């Protein structure tokens, strides 16, 4: 990727909030979605472990951040930033603790196990009074200028998405990327080649959890209200969205999830409301159609259609 392309994207992203300040919150959400899709793809696409439950890290980040903001007594922004970091740490810890047990499963078992994990976390959070149980939590109100806050949020999420992207790019090009690709392609062989598969699998999940946990803290504040099952540990919204975005864009590629997230979120914002009442039905249909007829995603399709232009560069691994 040439420098000027990055600069172009950077310029558009910096200009966007000023040109469309009515859409600040939605624009901020685009970056949240990008992080969701990118981090899902780390385990799902690059490693072939299709988790239906990565949303737990998002929810843990939300709750950890909100609890910290509630109890720390710091000012708005220090509490928010520290809280997001703490959210990330808690998400990582959870991934580290659960990783060994869950990533020991394969195929069906892993997917359904993680699906169950997501639901179980939502149910447990809904029974725990310290975090508001079923009543949920409201994040602190910001008393200054709303536009400024949203602008800061936008750039915060943008920065985090950039960081996620480049860290993952670096990882995928390193030995780590080769190892997790090897696990995806044939785990037995990878193990026979001397790769410590379990270590790599858990590490990959922890990385994914870290990105999700941090952005979760911010997303909770952007939405303002955290409900255990409908916001934080919501399998049927963020939980599926992240998978669907990664697949729409192109699973197992670096740019795919980014493209998928932008396309999915924009089209959702544009067309969802037109379906008044039928959007969830459309969602189910969309999943089926994409899986059946478009499993390779936008980037995958482009590569098939225009192999010369879009073929992955061998030097830069899977870009």
């Amino acid at each position, binding site marked *: 990727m040439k420098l000027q392309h990055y600069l172009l994207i950077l310029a558009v992203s910096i200009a966007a909030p000023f040109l469309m300040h009515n859409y600040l919150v939605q624009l901020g959400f685009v970056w949240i979605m990008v992080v969701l899709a990118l981090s899902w793809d780390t385990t799902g696409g690059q490693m072939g472990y*299709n988790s*239906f439950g990565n949303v737990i890290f998002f929810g843990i980040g939300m709750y950890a951040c909100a609890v910290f903001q509630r109890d720390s007594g710091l000012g708005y922004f220090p509490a928010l930033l520290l809280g997001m970091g703490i959210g990330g740490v808690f998400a990582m810890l959870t991934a580290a603790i659960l990783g060994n*047990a*869950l990533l*020991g*499963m*394969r*195929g*069906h*078992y892993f*997917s*359904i*196990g993680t*699906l*169950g*994990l997501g*639901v*179980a976390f939502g*149910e*447990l959070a*809904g*029974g725990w009074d310290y975090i508001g149980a*079923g009543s949920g939590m409201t994040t602190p109100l910001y008393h200054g200028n709303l536009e400024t806050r949203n602008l800061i949020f936008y750039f915060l999420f943008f920065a985090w998405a950039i960081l996620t992207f480049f860290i993952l790019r670096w990882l995928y090009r390193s030995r780590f990327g080769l190892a997790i690709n090897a696990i995806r392609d044939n785990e037995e062989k990878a193990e026979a080649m001397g790769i410590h598969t379990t270590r790599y699998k858990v590490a990959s999940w922890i990385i994914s959890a870290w990105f999700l946990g941090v952005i979760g803290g911010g997303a909770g504040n952007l939405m303002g209200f955290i409900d255990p099952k409908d916001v934080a540990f919501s399998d*049927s919204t963020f939980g*599926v969205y992240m*998978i669907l975005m990664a*697949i729409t864009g192109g699973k197992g590629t670096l740019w795919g999830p980014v493209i998928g997230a932008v396309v999915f979120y924009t089209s959702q914002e544009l067309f969802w409301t037109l379906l008044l*009442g*039928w959007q*969830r*039905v459309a*969602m*189910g*249909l*969309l*999943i*089926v159609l994409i*899986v*059946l007829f478009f*499993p390779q995603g936008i980037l995958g399709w482009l590569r098939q259609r225009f192999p010369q232009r879009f073929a992955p560069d061998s030097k830069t691994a899977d870009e």
Partner: protein
Amino acid sequence: MLDNVLILFHHPVFSVDLIVNGMLIGAIFMLAAYGMALVWGVMDVINIAQGEFVMLGGYVTLFVVKMGFSPLVGIPISAIVLFGVGWVIYRLVIFRVVERDVFTSLLATYGIAILLAQLLNETFGADVQTVSTGMGTWFFLDNNVTVAVIKVMAFVLALALGLLLWLFLKKSRTGQAIRATAQNPRAARILGIDTHHTFAMTYSLSAALCGAAGSLAVMAWAIQPYLGLPYTVRSFMIVVVAGVGNLIGVILAGLGLGVAENLAGFVFGAEFQIAFVFLLMIAVLVTRSTLLRRQRKYLR
């Protein structure tokens, strides 16, 4: 939590009630699980929409009752309608994913599950629905053990249906074809079995079982558009514990799960009942994979 255990200790008669009622619920789980085991064993597809089929079956019976028929008529009608639904879904979607990777079929059926749940919600509303059979309740032990007659009937019917299916698989031509395909689809195809037809048959049969289960569920309990997923997870868990193709195992695991769930709901409180089901499943899966890992070490 402790006081709940104490209640059981002081009034042991209530644990009888919990166990009996748990077993009766378990029979419905068992039916859905048997369908899942069939599809899993024959086609290597995990049907996440299993629970939604159960709900759909319940709504069909609800509709039948609203048309003025007896709820009992609803059981065969639900089964037949769901057989058709299963056939259509197979022809439209499943046959495209049967021989693709695991994730594709999981995600496709997950999509179907979301689609069905939302359609049910659009059509029937989000309310909890029940059908009253007016069959009354039996009382035992000084009224402390209550057993609704319909639950007993559901139990008996579920077992009978399971048995019927088992006979069908053992004796009939189609059943034999299904079993042959399960053992080796390629060999079955070479020997002249139309495997796609067999797959369609299997998937539809599984849906029909769910339809019957749903019909019993709406009479004995309650249904609601979003209660599908717990049924899917229960079925999955039962099949994992019992093993694919083990009817007795599925029955025992189903009944056991019903009892465990009912006792857990009592002891931990109802708010953790669903969490219990899902955590139990994770525990089962983790145990399974640890056991398998040990076996692998042995082989090395």
